[in-house]
């Protein structure tokens, strides 16, 4: 059976769309998903800003990502937090300001460590199991 050029084009377009959707779904499967906790976990966070420091800890938090726990600290201690969202298909959150210290002020930027390990993925994709200490530092690139 010989297909017409129009039929080929339609079949090709449909194939491309199907494969693209499959690839995006496969990519989603690789993204870490925080488990829903039935019991709270112990976490603490230290935020070292320019000339100030904030500490917060919880013995029964269910906010088990770096971003959610920082959000909890900001709500509990009433300091400001700003972030940008990367759009789907690979959604991610990047912190741009904590307690009025904005990325770029004095060529310094917010970076985080979980138990002295540098954060390799976005704050909302970094899952916490309990017992960790998160350190946010406002540092110049060469200090990171």
């Amino acid at each position, binding site marked *: 059976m010989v297909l017409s050029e129009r039929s080929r084009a339609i079949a090709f377009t449909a194939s*491309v769309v199907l494969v693209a*959707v499959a*690839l*995006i779904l496969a*990519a989603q499967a690789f993204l870490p998903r925080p488990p829903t906790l039935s019991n709270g976990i112990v976490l603490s966070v230290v935020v070292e800003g320019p000339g100030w420091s904030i500490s917060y800890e919880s013995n029964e938090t269910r906010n088990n990502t770096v971003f959610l726990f920082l959000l909890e600290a900001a709500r509990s201690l009433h300091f400001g937090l700003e972030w940008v969202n990367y759009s789907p298909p*690979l959604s991610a959150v990047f912190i741009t300001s904590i307690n009025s210290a904005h990325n770029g002020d004095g*060529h310094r930027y917010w970076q985080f460590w979980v138990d002295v390990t540098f954060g390799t993925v976005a704050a909302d994709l970094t899952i916490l199991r309990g017992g960790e200490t998160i350190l946010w530092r406002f540092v110049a690139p060469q200090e990171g």
Partner: protein
Amino acid sequence: MAIQRSRFRKLTRLDLAFLLVLVGVVGRLLLLNVANVETVLAASMLAGVFLGWRYALLVTISIMAITDVVIYAMGWGDPFGLLPILGLTAFTWSGMAFVGLIGAVAGRRRILFTTRSMAVLTVISIPATILYDVWTAFGDWLFIAGPRGVPLETVYFLQIPFTLVHIASSIIFVPLFGSIFAWLTPAPEYLPLPETTKGEPSKP
């Protein structure tokens, strides 16, 4: 001797190069907040396919230079410092230039405004995208992740979802813009046809 010229010449090569730069620049800047969905790879590859390797390099370098200046002027690259950004830039520019050269090799066979040609380009864009991502992830490890103690294998593992999305981006944008540019590309000129001559028919 009559020369039969194509009646379907639409744009010059320079026009096409300018349009490809436009596709790359506008696409990259508009999709900046959508990780690894971009039009630069398609523009570089199509420049190679339709215009040859010299234009592929010209288009690629133009797109990357214009968009990098805009992006870093907006402060996106600052968290990493100047040296890592320059190092990463060397990897991204050379990676895209390599994709353009892959396109130039693919363009040696005639690419027409047909489904078959677009399918060929789409298939070629997949390994081109993977090669680009493997190369630039290595650059990321060398200049950004490695100095912070992140192993290379972790960088490549974390790269997997980004590469899957990047392939999805390529297989959509390459045939989409490929078909548009295949239609716009000057048709190859016909060889001069010999004039008919009068003469006596040869005797058997």
